[in-house]
């Protein structure tokens, strides 16, 4: 390894960062809609037993789920998803990447769901009522009136969370995904420290791009208040 050229090292790190990118993209694709489903669950007013108006099982399940996922380390969740199926049910995880994605998607969906909930609950009651007196269905009110306002309000906290996700992807190394920091660390064994430190630049660059993108998105939605 020590005889690798600078270019080869950089390319090696890029290959590592590609893994980070994969985790990032797929986590977003699945966690964004899954989060909305969890939000609907935690806002559910469904009461199956009429004589027990306080018994809201869907809400409780969703809330408990969010509590567990937000209350435990992502690193632990990675271990559990990776090894528990094999140990408990004798169905070992076939692919490390699948395990990582499952853990990340669940973890981020829980966080996203709370951001969504905050956004939805911050919309004035009058918006729903206006839709209602105009004869709109609940669905129409949500998709034509509420959703867009929610997206505008949650963009700053979502940007924050998504930037955190970029950095969290390096946790995948603990189940053996050769992400960028794992790649860089190999070089330290042969006395090369700079590749490890340089990984920070990859993250900075990527998050810089995201910051510009989010800024543009926020500006786009600034046409109204």
């Amino acid at each position, binding site marked *: 390894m020590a005889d690798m050229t600078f270019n080869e090292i950089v390319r090696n790190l890029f290959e590592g960062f590609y893994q980070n990118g994969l985790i990032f993209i797929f986590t977003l694709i699945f966690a964004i809609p899954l989060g909305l489903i969890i939000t609907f669950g935690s806002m559910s007013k469904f009461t199956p037993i009429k004589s027990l108006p306080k018994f809201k099982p869907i809400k409780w399940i969703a809330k408990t789920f969010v509590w567990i996922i937000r209350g435990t380390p992502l690193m632990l969740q990675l271990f559990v998803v990776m090894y528990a199926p094999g140990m408990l049910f004798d169905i070992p995880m076939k692919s490390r990447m699948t395990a990582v994605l499952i853990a990340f998607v669940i973890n981020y969906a829980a966080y996203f769901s709370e951001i969504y909930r905050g956004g939805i609950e911050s919309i004035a009651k009058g918006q729903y009522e206006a839709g209602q007196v105009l*004869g*709109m269905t609940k669905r129409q009110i949500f998709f034509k009136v509420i959703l867009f306002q929610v997206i505008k309000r949650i963009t700053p906290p979502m940007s924050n969370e998504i930037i955190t996700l970029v950095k969290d992807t390096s946790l995948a190394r603990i189940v053996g995904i050769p992400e960028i920091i794992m790649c860089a660390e190999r070089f330290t064994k042969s006395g090369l420290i700079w590749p490890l430190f340089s990984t920070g630049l990859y993250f900075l660059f990527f998050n810089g791009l995201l910051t510009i993108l989010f800024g543009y998105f926020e500006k786009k939605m600034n046409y109204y208040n």
Partner: protein
Amino acid sequence: MSVLKIENIHKRFGKTEVLKGVTFEMNKGEVVAILGSSGSGKTTLLRCINFLEKADAGKIYVEGTPVFDAENKTKISAKEIRKNQLNFGLVFQSFNLFPQYNVLDNVMLAPKLLAKEREDYKVNKALIQSEIKKDALQMLEQVGLEQKLESYPCELSGGQQQRVSIARALVLKPKVLFFDEPTSALDPELTGEILKVIRNLALNKTTMIIVTHEIEFAKNVADRIIFMDDGVIAEDGTPEEVIDNPKNNRTRSFLNKFNELK
């Protein structure tokens, strides 16, 4: 036949009974102003009639057809409620325009969504859409906002926003148009433009119920004044009867307080 008939409406929130049996009816083309101090149940009454609150007891009829009956325990479908809701239009104190749509789209949103339920929508789509636009433009012209079609609510004054919300309610051609303190969120300068729009609607024989604190205005524009006190109708009559010669003590003291302020 009365266009709207309210029978013995009761509503309680927790331990407080806000409406203690309200009964009245009104004719087509009539303009009714509802006066009363804060907490007398005016707004709750409007919300009950518009299905934003569910009355605990009582009946509501539109043109003789029952649209609400608290006794009736069979579940009414959401579709049915929506259909009944469209008999009425409601203009809110706080406008409640949709901030992400411009003025024209605010007015056209509901009619466009409703049109999709029409059976001939797919066949006559272009025609229906152009009719909706024509209607919306006409309503916005009526409230004097034909110059502001592309503006967003945040770019408008409170008075202009309230006029958009009046156009938005009118475009659905409600049988009765309700106003819930339409000028309470506006400064006196802007109040005038809203009152002017309502006065014009009255001249065009629009059936309206207006909850207001503008006593002079109520006197000028309404055919009839209902004075509410403590969840019941304390007085109901022509403006001359209620405002100039109130029989009820509460009405008298309420009006006196207003006169002292002048």
